[in-house]
């Protein structure tokens, strides 16, 4: 280690010990010990799942907006292949483009919502959300009558039947803001707003810094703290690249207004499943759409308007009191109506 260069004289000052046999052995032992300690420290990496290591192709995959059509096609097929290999299920991964002249908005009738959480679980199924750990895009808040203070809301209400007396319900999901702070926050542009108003995430680009999650005033974003798990039999095979295709651990996700359905003319799963018709969805640029009518005619309000993100998600209530609905049992995960059923 301490070779002196010939002809340059002795070493002065702060020299190390001379190269003796004993010194050499001691250094050798220290080096071996050090290497062994480092090896032990990184030993957990043995269990690193194989698909966590990016292949050459994945590592150099370009940002969604920079991909050529051919590259995108290859990526879509690759995702299909990966699901097939991992889960043994044939799926179709598409990438429907935003439709011109369309801007989606959502309207939710809080005088009708009975808090049954059917939307929550329909969303879980439709969007292949992780069952363990549990991820849900929609949070239904039970509110005290006479208050819109979110802090007094109950997130984990669990009565035998809903609706409960003296409460109303306010489901919250991504509001697809027109001025989305989450998009501003992202350092790598992994999340952006599409022309039809939907804010999407490229799950292959997100670095998992969770800055967007801190920025969102509606608590709409969900992070994959662990590898998401969906039983193969329950996978929804109709997938979109920017929406419900399988996510990896360590990336962000959120509601996309079911863009793989809605950009093809269908309704979001939560709208379809709602037993009370509280959920309305459509194109606000079309004056004849139901949502346009609601925005014109109903008593509409925006949650937390003061944060100024200009949501595309509206709450409204009926003029003449709420329509009566027979009490029903709420959906609980694992019951016939929930996870395993239908």
């Amino acid at each position, binding site marked *: 280690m301490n070779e002196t260069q010939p002809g340059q004289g002795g070493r002065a000052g702060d020299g190390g010990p001379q190269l003796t046999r004993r010194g050499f052995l001691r250094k050798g032992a220290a080096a071996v010990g050090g290497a062994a300690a480092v090896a032990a420290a990184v030993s957990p990496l043995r269990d690193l799942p194989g698909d966590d290591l990016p292949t050459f192709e994945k590592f150099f995959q370009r940002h969604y907006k920079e991909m050529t059509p051919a590259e995108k096609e290859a990526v879509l097929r690759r995702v299909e292949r990966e699901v097939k290999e991992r889960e043994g299920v044939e799926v179709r991964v598409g990438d429907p483009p935003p439709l011109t002249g369309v801007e989606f908005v959502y309207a939710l009738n809080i005088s009708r919502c009975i808090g049954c959480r059917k939307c929550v679980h329909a969303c879980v199924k439709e969007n292949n959300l992780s069952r363990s750990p549990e991820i849900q895009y929609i949070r239904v808040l039970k509110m005290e009558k006479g208050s819109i203070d979110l802090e007094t*809301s109950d997130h984990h209400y669990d009565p035998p039947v809903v609706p409960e007396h003296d409460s109303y319900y306010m489901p919250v999901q991504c509001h697809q803001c027109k001025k989305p702070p989450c998009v501003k926050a992202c350092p790598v542009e992994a999340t952006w707003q599409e022309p039809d108003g939907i804010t999407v995430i490229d799950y292959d680009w997100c670095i998992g810094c969770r800055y967007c999650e801190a920025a969102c005033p509606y*608590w709409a974003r969900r992070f994959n703290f662990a590898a998401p798990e969906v039983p193969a039999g329950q996978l929804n095979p109709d997938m979109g690249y920017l929406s419900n295709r399988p996510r990896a651990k360590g990336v962000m996700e959120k509601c996309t207004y079911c863009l793989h359905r809605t950009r093809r003319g269908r309704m979001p799963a939560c709208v379809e499943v709602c037993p009370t018709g509280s959920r309305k969805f459509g194109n606000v640029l079309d004056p004849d759409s139901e949502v346009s009518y609601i925005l014109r005619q109903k008593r509409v309000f925006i949650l937390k308007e003061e944060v100024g*993100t200009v949501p595309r998600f509206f709450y409204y209530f009926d003029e003449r009191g709420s329509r009566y609905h027979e009490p029903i049992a709420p959906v609980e995960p694992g019951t016939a109506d929930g996870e395993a059923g239908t």
Partner: protein
Amino acid sequence: MKRYLTFVWDCVRLSFVGDWRYHLWMTILTVVALLGLYAYCQQLVHGLVTTGMTDQVSWGLYIANFTYLVGLAAAAAMLVIPVYVYRNMHLHDVVVFGELLAVAVITMCLLFVTVDLGRPDRALHLFRRFNFPISMLTWDVIALNGYLLLNLHICGYLLYCAYCGRQPARAFYVPFVFIAIVWAVSIHTVTAFLYVGFGGRPFWNSAIIAPRFLASAFAAGPAFIVLTLQIVRRVTRHRVTDDALFTLRRIMQVAMIINIFLLGCEVFTEFYTDSAHVASARYLYFGLHGRSALVPWIWTAIAFNLLATFLLVLPASRALRTLNTACVLAIVGIWIEKGMGLIVPAFVPTPLGEVVEYFPTWGEIMVCLGIWAFGLLLYTIFVRISVPVLAGELTYEKRYGVQAP
């Protein structure tokens, strides 16, 4: 070039040489750093579930430590101000130690951000699509890395000149010193802006955060250096005068008082208004809906800070023992306040009013300790190298018997 390589090689060699205390200290740090690496590898395999973070509290100890350390790093370089601007030569010796501290600490900052990433394998995406100037995080990336490079250049240049036995050319480092001073303010401010810019987090959404960052950094930074300098002068032959320590004490006095004043302003605004926005502050200071994990922490921090300030303004802190006590109190107090006290409560309650508490896991704590150990390891090596080099004991000439050209 060859001379530069021998310089690097001598530095590496030197960092393995020392007496038994040095070896013991370095071994302990290495072991802790490796334990941290072990915990991090586990986190890589299982994901961030190994931490206590959740969708509700999505940032925890990692970002808390990061925030604290940014302050420490900035303060280190600001010690330069009195030397170059006011020609206070008491501090001249300590400048290089301050800047080396900045280098070690910024390295720790970058490590803390990296371990917080869900997909560190994609960190290079920053180079391929950089959301500048919209995302404050990109500003922080630039500010921190720029600061690291500046300080590396200044320290590296001064040490290398000492090694070659020549006088450093002012043009090569004085301009950078001044840039570094301004830059130090910027790393603070940018890091504060990381938090204050969002309407959805009222606890952070306050203009006072950035000035408080500066004030507390000016207290914690010098406190750390006061302790370091005393260790340096005990275990090496490097002489540090008491006057230098007392200059630092004066900086701390002012900074602590301003910090406490700003804290008072903040507490008053929150609690006197008593609007819905006070929820996070109430959670922090008194607990909310029966959840009060942070309450003992923040009151400890406040007690420590008050006590430290009290000790510092007393003439008694001209005695080193009192001064050291005050320094330790300030370092710990500000660590709690800037870390747990600033980051975590902003997430409680969530924007939808849910109260979920954050408890760091052992894995997470191990990773943090590992990074701290690694940072101390780096700093120890830096000091180990720079003391003999600056003292002119290790130069090219002495090593190889030829005068450096």
